[in-house]
């Protein structure tokens, strides 16, 4: 289970950004800081896919970076299956699998070497790693290209390699930050199938996206972040109800509008 409550994160403004502030009407910016995340809370249960929604710059990526231990929160609590990510980040990292649309691979290593490298960094021994990679190659239909250098792989092959890399250590929870951005239909389908498989295995998944059709397909519950604040947490049917529309895009826009009015 993933628990996030009262999360806050601010960034010190650079000289250039301070100049921009004079023209900015963003309520998150003060004299010295940009308050990227002001109050975010949500949770994701076992076997559940939580859709994380929000416009560009809402604070989704910062939230997920804190969740995955890349950034340290200024305030708030994040727990992964009971482990506080701030107090014990190394243990928390063992429990998390992280994948984003912009994640790259080491071009001069083969697909297999890329995956094995991360397995070794996760402390997996040779035998366990061998079995796990073989299992993943089979599952993701990767055997035809595992010995090719990543720089020579197609976008779809790269994303399959990335998926395998993200879950090679068998994470207890998976965090996906816009994993389908810029992908073609075939590759998107691979990612969706991967999420469905995780769900069926009982792994909690947090899935940030701009594609509401994917939310409709995969998620039980939705969390909306706008201007660094959680403005909705609930099931898909509650989302439609709060947004006054059966069409998800419309419901989403209505929720954002309502929060802006508040």
């Amino acid at each position: 289970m993933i628990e996030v409550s009262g999360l806050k994160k601010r960034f010190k403004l650079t000289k250039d950004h301070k100049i921009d502030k004079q023209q900015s009407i963003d309520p998150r910016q003060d004299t010295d800081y940009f308050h990227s995340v002001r109050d975010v809370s949500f949770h994701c249960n076992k076997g559940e896919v939580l859709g994380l929604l929000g416009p560009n710059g809402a604070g989704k990526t910062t939230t997920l970076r804190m969740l995955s231990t890349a950034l340290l929160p200024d305030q708030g609590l994040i727990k992964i299956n009971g482990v506080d990510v701030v107090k014990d980040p190394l243990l928390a990292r063992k429990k998390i699998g992280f994948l984003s649309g912009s994640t790259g691979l080491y071009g001069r290593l083969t697909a297999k070497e890329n995956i094995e490298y991360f397995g070794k960094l996760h402390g997996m021994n040779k035998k366990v790693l061998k079995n796990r990679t073989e299992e993943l190659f089979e599952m993701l239909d990767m055997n035809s290209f595992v010995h090719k250098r990543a720089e020579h792989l197609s976008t779809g092959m790269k994303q399959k390699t990335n998926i395998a890399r993200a879950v090679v250590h068998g994470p207890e929870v998976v965090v996906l930050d816009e994993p389908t951005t810029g992908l073609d239909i075939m590759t998107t389908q691979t990612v969706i199938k991967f999420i469905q498989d995780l769900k069926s295995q009982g792994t909690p998944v947090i899935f940030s996206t701009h594609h509401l059709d994917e939310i409709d397909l995969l998620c039980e519950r939705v969390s909306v972040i706008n201007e660094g604040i959680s403005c909705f947490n609930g099931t898909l049917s509650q989302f439609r109800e709060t947004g006054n529309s059966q069409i998800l895009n419309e419901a989403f826009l209505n929720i954002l509008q309502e929060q802006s009015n508040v």
Partner: protein
Amino acid sequence: MFEVFKKEVRELLRDKKTLLFVVALPVLIFPILFGLMGFLMSQASLEAEQKVHVYAITGSQYAPEFAEKVKFHKSFKLSEVKYETIDEMKAAVRAGDLDVGILIPNDARTTLSQGIQSDWKVVFNDASALNFIYKRVNDAMKSFSEILQAEKFEQLGVTKEESIALLNPIKIEKIDTADKRENLGEKLGAFIPYLLIPLVLAGASYPAIDLGAGEKERGTLETLLLTPVTRTELVLGKFFTVLASSLATAFITVVSMGFWVSVAGNFVDAKIITEVMGTIGIVDLSLILLMLVPLAGIFSSLVLAISIYARTFKEAQNYMGPLSMVAFMPLLVAMMPNMELTMNTAMIPITNVALAIKELIKGTVDYSMVGMIFAATLVLAGVLMSFCVHWFKKESVLFR
């Protein structure tokens, strides 16, 4: 940390650019470049030496013996055009019609016979670095002066021995305590660090850019930060890769230089160089390489810190330019004439290593001073490495 190091080395060895900088540059490109430079310089020198200069003398009738000497000199050819004034000669030299013009005043005969100094003028273009004109004219004039001096001494009844004593009252016999190694070391010793130290920096720069800013640009850094490996271990893994690349460049350069010097020794008369190189000895040679280790540590920490800070490969490359200047300035100080290794110069980073290498090549080194420089450089490398680790832990640096 070892896994990070192993992976980084594997990736670097598969990178053509790294192989070019670390292996091909010292092994092949430098000898080719230096060989080509040497060939072109010797050709230019030979050409300048063999050149026949077109000359003109105004007032040759006042010093016919001198005019005769120049006329029969193999490097001079008399101009067919006659020049009367100094301005005409200047214009002809500027136009390229004349290489050298000599103006002998019409009172030359009288002044010389009366024992008064005669004022002659030589017009030529002195801009070229390889110019033998003035030297040749001077040589001809010197030999003419010697004839005049001999005539004068004879008239005055001065014997040859007395004339020598009059012209050079003191005879100096040079007894040089510096052996061949020290002599050549003084000249070569400043040049070798000037070649080696920038290579140590170059060997560190490219991999560092790839391992820091390159990771950010490719989008692999964030994934790496999410592994259960501490940031200290991650940055140390990267640091040791950069350090290894830097030292490999230096080592390959030293071996390559040794190889090419021995090859060159078979074709050209470089006996003195091979003799001197032979006297350096394995201990001093090892010390030269050892002195480069902490220096490579300093460079590796600096370039890695810069690379971690940069957002892109290009931004990191932009920062490397000023850093090279910072490394070159202390080297220039070490190359200054009469710059010796003292307690003061031993305190200047990079300069101290360059001077220590020079002293090691000369064979005049104070080993306690070398030890002190090694320790001081090591401490500085340690401090910079700690800064690099601290830098790598800062969110504002990693997520700019």
